[in-house]
């Protein structure tokens, strides 16, 4: 009997085949999505280059020689030219990545947590609680997001938080809605009812049954918000909010260089291209993840 139970334990402990198969299918679909792997590599490169920026360039992002200002892309010594203060643009873009990426990803993380909690609880408990929460969020949703972000940002003054907080605020309503809808989809399922009748408290049911079954879809939706966040955050700094000179950051660099559009057009758009490439890889990745998740059912 001892041997038999040990064998049973072993069977329980080793991974069931279908999980392994699902994971393989996930990865295969992901990799098969056009440009998914290159996008992933590109994103990793961007992230690493922002982190290891000092090691990648001999220049200081704050040092500029005024006499060398506005040199074109491809000038020897300055691969991407110099800005209006004479600072090397490639260097500033690499360092700027730190701010832009943080401002892009952090709000999504914050909004995911807050939005999911609000949405899941609304979806689970429903009725009056859901009404109050969702109606309040609707009020925020009633503003075109960028306007609300601008207004909130100007109220909050300057500093990174005056970008991160408004973007988080505008991302919460859509995430909460998706979370609520997702939860409502699985509420009629048998296993939920079973869990509830088994006497488990609401918290346990949510944590062990609702979240594992909905989080995939919620998470995938949140990844689509990364590019919205990056574009909006850089948009706010482009308008002059949040970041103050001489901090390098893609959006505010674009704003400073904007005056030179008629004199050095190619130079002007360089920071914008960094934003574009980052948003592009993030979008491709989130598409691929969505496909992969659907493939595993």
């Amino acid at each position, binding site marked *: 009997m001892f041997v038999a139970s040990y064998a049973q334990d072993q069977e329980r402990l080793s991974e069931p085949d279908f999980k392994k198969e699902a994971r393989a299918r996930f990865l295969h679909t992901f990799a098969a999505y*056009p440009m998914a792997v290159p996008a992933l590599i590109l994103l990793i490169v961007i992230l690493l280059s922002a982190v290891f920026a000092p090691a990648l360039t001999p220049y200081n992002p704050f040092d500029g020689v005024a006499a060398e200002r506005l040199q074109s892309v491809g000038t020897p010594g300055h691969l991407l030219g110099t800005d209006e203060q004479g600072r090397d643009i490639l260097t500033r873009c690499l360092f700027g990545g730190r701010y832009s990426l943080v401002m892009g990803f952090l709000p999504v993380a914050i909004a995911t947590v807050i939005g999911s909690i609000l949405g899941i609880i609304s979806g689970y408990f429903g009725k009056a609680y859901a009404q109050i929460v969702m*109606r*309040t969020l*609707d*009020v*925020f949703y*009633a*503003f*075109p*997001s*960028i*306007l609300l972000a*601008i*207004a*909130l940002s*100007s*109220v909050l*003054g300057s500093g990174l938080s005056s970008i991160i907080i408004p973007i988080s605020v505008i991302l919460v309503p859509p995430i909460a809605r998706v979370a609520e809808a997702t939860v409502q989809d699985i509420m009629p399922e048998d296993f939920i009812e079973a869990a509830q009748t088994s006497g488990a408290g609401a918290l346990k049911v949510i944590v062990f049954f609702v979240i594992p079954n909905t989080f995939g879809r919620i998470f995938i939706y949140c990844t689509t918000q990364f*590019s919205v966040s990056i*574009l909006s955050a*850089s*948009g706010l700094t*482009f*308008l002059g909010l949040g970041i103050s000179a001489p901090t390098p950051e893609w959006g505010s660099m*674009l704003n400073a260089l*904007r005056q030179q*559009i*008629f004199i050095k*057009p*190619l130079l*002007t*758009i360089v920071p*914008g*291209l960094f*934003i*574009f490439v980052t*948003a*592009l890889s*993030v*979008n*491709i990745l989130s*598409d691929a993840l969505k496909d992969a998740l659907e493939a595993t059912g």
Partner: protein
Amino acid sequence: MIRVILKRIGLAFLTLFGVTVIVFALLQMMPGEPIDSIVPLDASDALRQAIIEKYGFDKPLYVQYFCWLGNALRGNFGNSVSDNRLVLTIVSEALHNTLILALGASIVAFLLSIVIGVYSAYRPKSILSWVGTIFGIGGISIPNYCLSLILIGIFSVTLHVLPSNGMYFSGDYSFSSLLRHLILPALAAGAMTLGIMTRMVRSSVAETRNRSFVTTLRAKGLSEPAIMRHVLRNSFPTLLTVAGLQFGYLMGGSTMVETIFSWPGIGLIIYQSIFTSDFPTTQAAILIVAVIFVSINLIIDLLRIVADPRLRK
């Protein structure tokens, strides 16, 4: 069905009320006192008092709120602090201009996206389909302010074929003058809509094509174009919803494109008025944009309720 419609309308009003409170609160929290932006430094006390009385700054906040709301409902939004014109005039002109921009962007985006999206769904391996993918993913990834600069760089600076700011040539208020000024901003503003719609159309059409009723229709001997009409009709509600929401977003969210192209729209007015502490204008403009947004959402919801019997519970 009437109950559902009434409930939805009631909800919209509730939302609007919340919107007014938030707009008023936001403005109170903004840096800068509106009174300080009007009263000159050398002002005598008499002048200062006259200004306070005229704008009602001496009353407590909740009184100011209700006065403002009451006036707003009657269409009286006061005078702009910057140039003393009626705020209502400023805002309606700006809305008009943004409407032109939003329509221009939407029409281009919708038409292009339907053509490309449908074609891609039918011929997934063709060049046009590949173009569609590029538009799709590119459109939602490129920041519209960056695209504006790129377009200006190509068409205004290098090729000198299109103007880079304003709505009209001096003295020339013809439609063709407007159109030439509209092209670049509409493209820049519409890129994201184009991206979203192309992807949406393609996935919606592709999904609908695979449904069993299509096979049935084909088995019945219906021609391909006729089948395509059926497929499109089925996708239409979803597409309409997304299109409507995108239009609403364009109405309020084109601030950056408007700034770069100096297009005198509502986004630009809001942005400028926030920084010049022209609170009457900011309040009115944000409120009106939110009202429009809520109304568009409401109309779309109502259309959906009427159109889709499943929602009439």
